């Protein structure tokens, strides 16, 4: 039997090639604009790592053909409760455990509701998003110190460094890659996303899969919340609010179809998150103004999706 031709392999690598193009463009534009490219790399990591963490976990949910719109709110609540736990105990490990623990509990609630009421995960996350957003306001109100909850910056500063964040990201990606690629969970998730009826008729328990996916995603959310506190220890009701949309963009930018299924790739998230980071820096260096910058980002986004989906546009074959 033959192997895939290089042309057939291109779609799988298109997003990585895209990232390489963006990195090259970053350096070129940086040189032209006399920008501080070394510092910019650090900024890109800081700006991309939380999205990369949350998006990597979210790949499991999207792979199932589902959708989680409450990612931002869940990250915000986890961060707020983590910060409050730190303020109560002065212990960073407690803060970490609360961030991850709260996220896992929220993920479990989402998936259990979907399982019990036989609803798509998306529907329960819509409800969760509203509930969690309101809960964030309540938490800030309880705190009684204006409209923020703060952790002392000097206490978390030792952890606010690139090696630590990269280490967390690398460890989580390794875990997710392991589960997605080497365990049956990933295969079953991809198959379910591609055809849930066939998956069920092949012996796959999609409810159990939904719960596992939610829990894995929740760990990413908890880690994202923890890194958010470290990076910017003043939290408001808007903390992490844009993450939901950023995750979708990152995943699509990374070459994964939003509908999930067999073409899902665990690395799409991190490739997409960093692609977005590089693109944002390039737009910033060009100082185009936010309107033009957004338009160009949108155009590049459409181009990437167009190329990535190009291979899937049907060609009729003999029958």
């Amino acid at each position: 039997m033959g192997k895939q031709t290089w042309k057939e392999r291109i779609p799988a690598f298109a997003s990585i090639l895209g990232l390489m193009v963006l990195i090259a463009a970053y350096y070129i534009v940086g040189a032209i604009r006399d920008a501080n490219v070394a510092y910019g790399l650090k900024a890109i990591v800081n700006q991309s790592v939380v999205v990369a963490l949350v998006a990597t976990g979210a790949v499991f949910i999207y792979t199932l053909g589902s959708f989680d719109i409450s990612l931002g709110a869940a990250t915000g609540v986890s961060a707020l409760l983590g910060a409050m736990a730190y303020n109560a105990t002065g212990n960073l490990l407690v803060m970490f455990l609360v961030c991850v623990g709260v996220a896992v509990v929220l993920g479990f609630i989402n998936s259990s509701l979907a399982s019990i009421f036989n609803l798509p995960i998306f529907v329960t996350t819509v409800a969760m998003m509203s509930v969690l957003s309101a809960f964030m306001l309540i938490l800030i109100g309880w705190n009684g110190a204006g409209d923020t909850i703060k952790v002392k910056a000097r206490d978390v500063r030792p952890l606010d460094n690139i090696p630590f964040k990269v280490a967390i990201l690398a460890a989580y990606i390794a875990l997710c890659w392991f589960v997605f690629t080497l365990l049956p969970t990933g295969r079953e998730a991809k198959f379910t996303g591609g055809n849930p009826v066939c998956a069920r008729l092949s012996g796959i328990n999609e409810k159990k899969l939904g719960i596992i996916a939610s829990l894995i995603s929740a760990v990413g959310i908890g880690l994202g919340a923890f890194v958010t506190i470290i990076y910017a220890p003043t939290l408001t009701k808007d903390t992490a609010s844009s993450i939901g949309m950023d995750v979708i963009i990152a995943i699509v930018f990374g070459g994964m179809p939003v509908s999930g299924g067999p073409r899902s790739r665990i690395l799409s998230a991190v490739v997409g998150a960093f692609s977005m980071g590089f693109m944002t820096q390039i737009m910033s260096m060009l100082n185009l103004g936010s309107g033009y910058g957004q338009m160009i980002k949108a155009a590049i986004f459409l181009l990437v999706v167009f190329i990535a989906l190009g291979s899937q546009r049907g060609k009729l074959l003999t029958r």
Partner: protein
Amino acid sequence: MEPVLSVRGMDKTFGATIALRQVDIDVYPGEIRGLIGENGSGKSTLTSIIAGIQKADAGEVTFHGKPWQPASMIDALEHGIGMIVQETGTIPGITVAENLFLGETSRFHNKLGLVSRKAMEQEARKALDVIHADHIRPDIVTAMLDLQERKLVEVAKVMVKKPEILVVDETTTALSQKGRELLYQLMNNLKKEGRAVIFISHDLDEIKQVCDTLTVLRDGKIITHFSKENYDDDAIKASMIGREMQGDYYRADNEPTWQEKVLLKAEHLTGSDLKDISLEIRAGEILGIGGLSECGMHTLGKALFGSAMLTGGTVTVEGKHYSDPQMATRLGVGYVSKERDTESLCQQASIRDNIAIGGLQHIQKKKLILKKRETAYVQKQVDVLSIKCRHMEQPVSAMSGGNKQKVVFGKWLGAGSRILILDCPTRGVDIGVKQSMYQLIAKMKNEGKAILIISEEMTELIGMCDRLLVMKDGAVQKEFLRGNMNEADIIRYMI
């Protein structure tokens, strides 16, 4: 008589694959022309070019003596050639009327510029009545229709334009006997009106019954033509596959045989279209279920796999009860659905993924899925079943019907299923592949597997089964043993 459609020197390639080479064919008014050939012979490619779906690389097509180069399928239909495709041609989320007049809703604009649903549904009603599909409501969402009804909507959509040439591409596989009769009637009406039909089917009996002439394709070339007077099964089959068929088509033996051990037992199954059905399947037995399309046999297949809603009854494998597909697969039950593309395969996934998903427990080593083991596992099924593909990463959507069915078989065989429920296993499959499937089923019987075949093809049931249960209106009417199966008797209990 001058042909209404002429094709000269048509070539078409897809990458390295030569789909058509120097094809010449003439279609005459008032003719029903059958096109037959193995999967991959070029039948659908030829007709899809004629119907405007794609363009040829070389060659000439004339329609009524004038060059024929439709810009699209819609353009072709507007100018006189319509096609009913093999795959699903309706959009599930909109109504029947909206599907019928897709892209033409401007016809029904009222004075305010809004679409008048009433007017559209009235016209849809007329179109459905033309094809005698009066049971289909124009205002119903298409997703609520079953496969056959959706196919009839597609037929109505094409017939409303009164095409001069109608192309029917393996449409009858989705239809019950009643649906097929309806279609045959339409085709005959067109013939009487002096129009032409190009009919593609794998069912030799059907094609011989319906068609005036038969053209055989193989490897993208026209091999020969048969006129009705010269129809000969063996000659037709030989020209299709390029050799004499070796061995038996169905099973060689004529006696029912099975082992003592009962593998699967169903007791008092009752549901929406099942009435108190009980049966047993033994190891090494092929049990057939036959009947008309709506008799409940397809639901029975699902029920035996644990995926149908039942109001009563139990299904057990060696005494162990199960009620969902997960438990069924763990107990060694495999299920090949009639709706292959939507229920048995993940179209976007590769051959590898579709086969491996059934046997992940066999591929794992210390809970990990290792690529090498997976490759070997899948390769074994590809080899055993002679699945034609370029490589195992190929998406199944690009495969022929027969090869797709082999992939489905591979999933369950690889999983080591001891009990196989096969619902219309050779639907949409050419005779060469059919023969190999029958041989495989016979082999599985000899290996001691319990096999249930649900089929609407009587010859298949008679040819393969040790026992045959005939169903009607949700209940078993009669049991026949191999050797005593007679078509006339069976039909009597079916209707």
